[in-house]
């Protein structure tokens, strides 16, 4: 490691880290907020499921670098404006989370929903107080996939000149210096770890009834490959972070 480079660029690195955090977090939060109602809609109306999931999946097909460059032409922004990155990532997050939310809601045991209905919950109450809380583990597992891929995708924007941790990669490449690149990778991984802990905390807060062991990342990924037939996507791509528990019965019965 070249410490001279590090110490003389410390404030720039901090700036890049903060920019990276914002560029990752805003799309994640907005994308999730949009995905909740849309996913509920897709779950309510089975005919829409294919349409909504198919259309959103199509956006996922477009490589991010191409997306960043094409967006200004479609929505009329400046070509090098960071807002393009935010919008593109929001669409990616939405595309992923709509499916996760719809599948998560579908995995809520039927008896639970029927019990709520029998107790007099109206459709909206049923959604916010029963279905959504039960689907939280699935949704947060999906959100983790979205966050981690967003962290990586944001770095691509360095190629078109949007400043964030990816700028350390391009800088290192043009200087022929390994230090900035390694620094950038470590910081990206660090952000991933911190945000994972944040999601873990959120999961603990929102689902106090679950045993702590079920929440750790390792348990999450191990159970994803082991128990769930439909879960390949959880590891093959962000398309299918799978319902991790409770839903297994639903599929088999």
């Amino acid at each position, binding site marked *: 490691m070249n410490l001279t480079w590090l110490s003389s660029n410390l404030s720039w690195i901090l700036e890049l880290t903060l920019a990276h955090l914002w560029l990752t977090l805003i799309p994640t939060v907005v994308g999730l907020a949009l995905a909740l109602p849309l996913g509920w809609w897709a779950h309510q109306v089975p005919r829409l499921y294919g349409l909504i999931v198919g259309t959103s999946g199509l956006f996922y097909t477009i*490589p991010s670098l191409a997306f960043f460059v094409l967006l200004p032409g479609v929505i009329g922004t400046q070509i090098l404006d960071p807002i393009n990155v935010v919008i593109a990532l929001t669409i990616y997050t939405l595309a992923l989370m709509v499916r996760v939310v719809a599948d998560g809601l579908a995995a809520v045991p039927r008896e639970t929903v029927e019990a709520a209905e029998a107790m007099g919950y109206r459709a909206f109450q049923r959604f916010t107080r029963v279905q959504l809380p039960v689907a939280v583990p699935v949704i947060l597992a999906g959100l983790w996939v979205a966050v981690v891929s967003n962290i990586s995708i944001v*770095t691509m924007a360095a190629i078109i000149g949007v400043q964030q941790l*990816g700028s350390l*990669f391009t800088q*290192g490449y043009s200087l022929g210096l390994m230090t900035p*690149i390694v620094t950038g990778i470590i910081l990206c991984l660090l952000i991933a770890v911190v945000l994972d802990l944040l999601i873990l905390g959120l999961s603990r807060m929102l689902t106090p009834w679950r045993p702590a062991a079920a929440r750790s990342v*390792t348990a999450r990924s191990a159970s994803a490959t082991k128990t769930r037939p439909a879960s390949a996507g959880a590891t*093959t791509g962000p398309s299918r972070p799978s319902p991790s528990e409770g839903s297994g019965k639903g*599929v088999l019965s």
Partner: protein
Amino acid sequence: MSGLIEFFADPGNWSGSTGIPVRIGYHLLNSLIALGLALAIAVPLGIYVGHTGRGEAVVAGMANALRALPTLGLLIVVVMLAAPLFSSSLVFTAPAILVLVLLAIPSILTGTSTGIQTADRSAVDAATGLGYTPMQVLTRVQLPCALPLMISGVRGAMLQIVSTATVAAYVSLNGLGRYIIDGRANNDFGQMAAGAALVAVVALVLELGFLLAGRLTISPGLRRSERRLKVTAGAAPAT
């Protein structure tokens, strides 16, 4: 937008070594080489993991770790480290393709192993009861049953490769990404947009191709359960 149309209207952009057909060709060639290598490594490994159940945790952990690694950083590190090892004509191509292979492996591997693991138990038992040898069970029952998930994994891998191959233009890999990089360098936004549009079209066409391949190769008996499990759209982490 007008720059985009101008770019496509210019006959000079349709011929020569920097022309659209040649760039599309390179993009597809690099992607196919990477996919072929990734398949050769990941499918046997996935069959082994799925069949024996060994190393699942390792595979899952590796896939997660690779997902968290920023692709652009990985690409640049590998090119900087590996470039001196290759002869001059491959100096940039080989390390970049190495990264494409690396990124494609997890999704094919998990698709294959999960597919084999979750092949209908009763079908496997029935085949064993009929006197199939373990090898026959694998090739005639488990693999066909695993096909939907395998194809979804390969599709994810292909999209990841095409996407990363675009970015790899930054480290001098030939292909459609060059239009984006060169356009950026010359402030030629028309060229950038044209490159981006071409990449998007290539990705969408490949996606459709995989959809079709799935229709043609997946046993009709599996289709109902496939829909029920909703394993179809396995998109790559778009990078």
